[in-house]
């Protein structure tokens, strides 16, 4: 087995702004041609309420609060369709104000051994400073924020934890966060632009960050 191996992953786009959850129902997505009608009809609805709509299709999960929308998938073959779904939705609803966006990637890596697993924690958070303060100190979670290297405002935040799903494993979540500076009347334009421009770079970067964290050193 390799030193680390990606075992579970997911991708999501989170938007913050001002939304009307009741619009975002499976039938609406189907009628707008954003998902197949059959997929819309077979969607598993969890909640339809004026303040929250939540459902899953065979490919996506969608969750809408008045101030937050989430599009997610755990299937790599639907990553690009996920972007298309978010783009398509807000091309239709382009006057909806979207102020912030996160392109997020969650990954669970299985480590080849307990020793390999500890080596990641020890490298990221050396125990020496804690040795006199805590008994058996161990890394429970670590967030590191980096500046953006593109034209957008925001930050890239990586968080590392022991995996709760894979043992011994490491969980990494990358939040590629965009502050969109949406001007009144511009609705979702900035978000559409940022998502269109950044998607591929964001995917590659988040994977590179994660692979760097779990690499043998």
């Amino acid at each position: 087995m390799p030193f680390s191996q990606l075992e579970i992953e997911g991708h999501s786009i989170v938007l913050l702004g001002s939304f009307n959850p009741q619009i975002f129902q499976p039938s609406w997505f189907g009628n707008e041609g954003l998902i197949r009608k059959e997929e819309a009809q077979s969607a598993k609805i969890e909640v339809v309420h004026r303040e929250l709509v939540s459902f899953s299709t065979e490919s996506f999960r969608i969750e809408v609060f008045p101030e937050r929308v989430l599009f997610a998938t755990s299937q790599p073959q639907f990553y690009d369709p996920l972007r298309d779904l978010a783009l398509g939705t807000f091309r239709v609803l382009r006057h909806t104000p979207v102020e912030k966006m996160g392109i997020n990637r969650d990954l669970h890596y299985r480590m080849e051994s307990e020793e390999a697993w500890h080596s990641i924690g020890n490298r990221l958070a050396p125990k020496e400073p804690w040795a006199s303060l805590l008994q058996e100190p161990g890394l429970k979670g670590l967030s590191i924020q980096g500046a953006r290297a593109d034209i957008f405002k925001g930050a890239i935040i990586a968080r590392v934890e022991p995996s709760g799903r894979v043992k011994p494993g490491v969980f990494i979540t990358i939040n590629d966060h965009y502050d969109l500076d949406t001007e009144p009347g511009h609705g979702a334009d900035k978000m559409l632009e940022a998502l269109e421009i950044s998607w591929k770079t964001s995917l590659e970067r988040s994977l590179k960050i994660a692979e760097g964290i779990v690499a043998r050193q």
Partner: protein
Amino acid sequence: MSGVAVHKYDPAQAVDLSVSTNSMENSRIPKSVTSKVFSGSVWHQTTPPNQFQHLQIQAAGSSNTMTTLSQSNDVGHSLWPKFNTMSLPEQLKPTSPVRVPRKTYATEARFLQLQKWECTVLEVKEDAFTARLIDQTGSNPDEEAEFSLDEVDTEDRDLVEAGAVFYWSIGYRDRPSGRERISTIRFRRLPVWTPKELRIAAQEAARVREKIGWK
């Protein structure tokens, strides 16, 4: 249960909260769970939940675009409440209890992707179509291939026309019954381009043209 902040709680999902509480302003996290999880859109209740678990929305103060704060044993629990700074006007804050979803991602058998192409339809024939394939997983040169229309989902057939974009993935899907090799074709579904997007595309084309010295 209306009028009371109700929270789901799963004792099996014990994750350090110290980082998250330090990162939140005006946290609504009940003191009773200060060392416990943060796994969903809401905190989990410390008392036995009723059948439908009506919950107050807790995402109202979120200004953070992460999917998870801590993975708490499940990829894809959604945003934790009140992570940082944006404060909403009072009228936008939720008042009604509603059910809150538990997971961010749809539960699916794991798909292990071997190769992925972004493809553009070149020509449509009676029962087949040809497409240009751009490798998305390596640096292989572009290829052309012919696909039977039978490979396309019935509902997607109207989308098959010259210039249409689709994604072709091949890989393994692991199910309890065993591993199967699968191929998926998914056509891009987008409304028409906006004038601004067309402008951006034109600018990008001009930039590329300039870069390669194409007159």
